[in-house]
């Protein structure tokens, strides 16, 4: 069962709560402005169609921000995102609504803290638009002791 916040000690199999995001034109325009990327593929319908697309397409990198935000919301402010790798499998278009999901795949500890590995997806309807892997570092002060992490069994 997904929990709004991570368990004190995440275990393989723990699921993140699903996050649904409406990708209306205002959101795409805001992201374009915030990232200084005004490519017409992301806001110009005629341009997008001339390029062989149905309509303006969401910048794939936007999903990095959304996936990272979902991870941080679940893991809490003390967690540090160490890595995020994404594969963009299908275009996502303006006015699509996507669902972000994630699952813990591994947990290990060292003197730096507890490292949580995760898989994430961005679903658009019945298809996976983006697949991702991530690693979060939970500091020792977050209630864990390095070297005593039990990988445990998946829930």
């Amino acid at each position, binding site marked *: 069962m997904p929990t709004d916040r991570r368990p004190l000690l995440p275990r393989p199999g723990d699921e993140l709560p699903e996050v649904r995001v409406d990708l209306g034109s205002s959101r795409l325009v805001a992201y374009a402005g915030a*990232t*200084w*990327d005004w490519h*017409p593929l992301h806001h110009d319908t005629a341009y997008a169609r001339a390029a062989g697309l149905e309509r303006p397409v969401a910048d*794939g990198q936007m999903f990095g*921000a959304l996936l990272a935000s979902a991870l*941080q919301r679940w893991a809490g402010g003390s967690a540090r995102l160490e890595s995020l790798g994404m594969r963009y499998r299908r275009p996502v278009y303006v006015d699509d609504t996507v669902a972000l999901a994630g699952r813990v795949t591994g947990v290990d500890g060292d003197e730096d803290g507890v490292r949580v590995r995760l898989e994430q997806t961005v679903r658009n309807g019945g298809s996976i638009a983006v697949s991702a892997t991530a690693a979060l570092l939970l500091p020792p002060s977050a209630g864990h002791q390095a070297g005593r992490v039990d990988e445990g069994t998946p829930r």
Partner: protein
Amino acid sequence: MAGNQPGTERAGSLLTAELRAMVGSRASYTAAEPVTRSAIRYFARAAGIDDADEPPAVDERGAALAPPTMVCETNEFYAGTLPGHGYLGHVWDLPLPPSRGLRGGNEYVFFRPLREGDVVTVHWRLAEVGERRTRSGGVLLSVVSDVEYVDAGGDVIARNRETMLYQPMAAVDAD
């Protein structure tokens, strides 16, 4: 997607000798100004981050900390006249016929958060090129770049391995 061996280019291949010769190409850009707190808030708001309008997390010196992916996703570090296609970021001048470019993937590694006040230099290197056939028999070219974001002291803030995919427009029209 593995790179084809030289001399095995097939009809319709985009993997020309001229393109292969670009592997190892480099480009660097230094931001015209430091990262600002308002830019951080704008990114957080655009990314739908909770509490985007609340005071941001700060470091020990009171500098606002950016959401982790901002350093790799913003193009504010690139200066110059806005090109006709509206994209200010780095683009390799690839010897290709008219093609559609799409993102294939990004792999980010973060060494520390981007901070208010950072003056960032971005280093690009064209790392790999490769090609495969699509199910419909068309050609799909991949171009992999290694990108490094460093601060004014030369310390690495983040790295980004970016894969761009290119498909000739003639093939796109045929689909």
